[in-house]
């Protein structure tokens, strides 16, 4: 299959080059006004300009801070709540429909409410990221308990395991893949929450940069902002996968698919 692999690589490289050249070429040849789609060289030049002027990194830092705070708070609240709700079987059965319905609710729609509560402070963006993350983590942790088979517990009990030993040997290993899979999803959600919060009200952050670019009809700046988001998303996914590979954590297919 080596020939197939090399053909794939050749096609991939050819595609990206063709897209970039086609984009640049159609703008240079006057087929499309750069006002609408900018062009790769214009975007690169604008990125350099913003970097040199120190007008890019502070925005990136702001978005990262909001994202990480929201992620940390969401995991810090979501995992314990999921553990409490999931650990006791009768409680789990009682709250399950509520958890599922809450999870299906579009949390993004809370943005106007947060705007009323928090104004345009940092807390608005962190709250957005938090509310997207926390339900993912609650549901993920919660669902992990559903995957523990009664036989495993029974076998452990027969072999004379204490409650603590059962928790360590059966429960925790069963939950880790679920929590981790939810976490991987949450990273992207936290970024999305932060950026949406910035669109709605802010004076800093990548979302602000994009919004400002649109406001001034400056498409190059918009694309610089989008490229920054893409890089953050790809880098954080790669980092999470690297950690998972290191720790040999498996991921699971989440049953109730998450919506923002």
């Amino acid at each position, binding site marked *: 299959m080596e020939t197939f692999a090399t053909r*794939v690589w050749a*096609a*991939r490289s050819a595609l990206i080059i063709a897209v970039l050249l086609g984009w640049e070429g159609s703008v240079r040849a006057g087929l499309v006004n750069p006002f609408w789609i900018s062009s790769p060289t214009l975007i690169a030049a604008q990125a350099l300009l913003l970097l040199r002027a120190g007008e890019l990194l502070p925005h990136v830092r702001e978005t990262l801070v909001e994202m990480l705070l929201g992620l940390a708070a969401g995991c810090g609240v979501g995992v314990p709540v999921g553990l409490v709700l999931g650990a006791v079987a009768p409680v789990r059965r009682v709250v399950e429909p509520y958890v599922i*319905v809450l999870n299906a609710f579009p949390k*993004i*729609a809370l943005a*106007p409410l947060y705007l009323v509560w928090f104004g345009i402070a940092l807390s608005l963006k962190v709250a957005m990221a938090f509310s997207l993350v926390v339900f993912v983590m609650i549901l993920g942790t919660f669902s992990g308990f559903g995957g523990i088979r009664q036989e495993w517990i029974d076998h452990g009990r027969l072999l004379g395991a204490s409650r603590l030993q059962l928790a360590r040997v059966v429960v925790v290993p069963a939950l880790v893949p679920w929590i981790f899979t939810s976490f991987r999803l949450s990273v992207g959600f936290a970024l999305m929450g932060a950026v949406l919060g910035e669109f709605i009200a802010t004076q800093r952050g990548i979302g602000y940069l994009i919004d400002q670019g649109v406001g001034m009809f400056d498409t190059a700046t918009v694309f610089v902002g989008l490229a920054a988001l893409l890089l953050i998303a790809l880098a954080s996914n790669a980092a999470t996968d690297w950690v998972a590979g290191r720790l040999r954590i498996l991921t699971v*297919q989440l049953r109730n698919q998450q919506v*923002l």
Partner: protein
Amino acid sequence: MERIVQAALLPVFIGTWEVSGRLGWLDTRVLSLPSSIAARTVADVASGLLLHHTAVTLAEMVLGFLAGALTGLLCGLVLGAFPLARHTLMPYLAAIYSIPRPALAPLFVLWFGVGFLSKLVLVVTLVYFVFLLHVVAGLQTIEARHVDWLRTLGASRRQVLQRVGIPHLLPWLFASTKLGLALALIGAIVGEFISSRAGLGFVMMHAAENLDREGVLSGIVVLSGVVMGIIIPLSALERRLFRWQVDVRL
């Protein structure tokens, strides 16, 4: 017993909220009261204001969903049939998929204006990728030996698709529909938040800008109704259709 507790949980929660608000334990200027939210929702719905804007949001959602689902399904089937194209494009598609698409909303406003079209395009970009990636993934889970067996028995390509392909894809398409509808609603709302002149998101943001908490909350109540109206029938249908599959998906 569990059923009773389950059914009682929501009324108890709302009752506690109402009572503690009336007794002054909660700041009603921040949290409002269930009774006043309900009254406001009824008033807004009765005046026809919310109905009109909800219809706008639903139209964006449904049209965008249909367009995104059809194109995504077609492109997924095409990619499934051509391994070279699939292997070439997948990393790019996955990268595009990882951009938070709502981040594109301002760009779409710039390109397509503040009206209906910019929301429609945002919804399409959200739904398209869900279907495309699910269809490709679903086609890959088809076991090669099943196809081989049918081929050995002399089945044509079309028969293989009918007997193995479509039954295999159905649960994936169903999952895509559920996720796609939810994302379509989100896309429509987010698009309206960012800039619009109509729709549920517009009403809520407008209320927020006037610090009208109950206006925001009545929008949230109506939105919850829309979500329930989508989720509950779909979940029931899923349980009926794919009962045989429940264990597999766990």
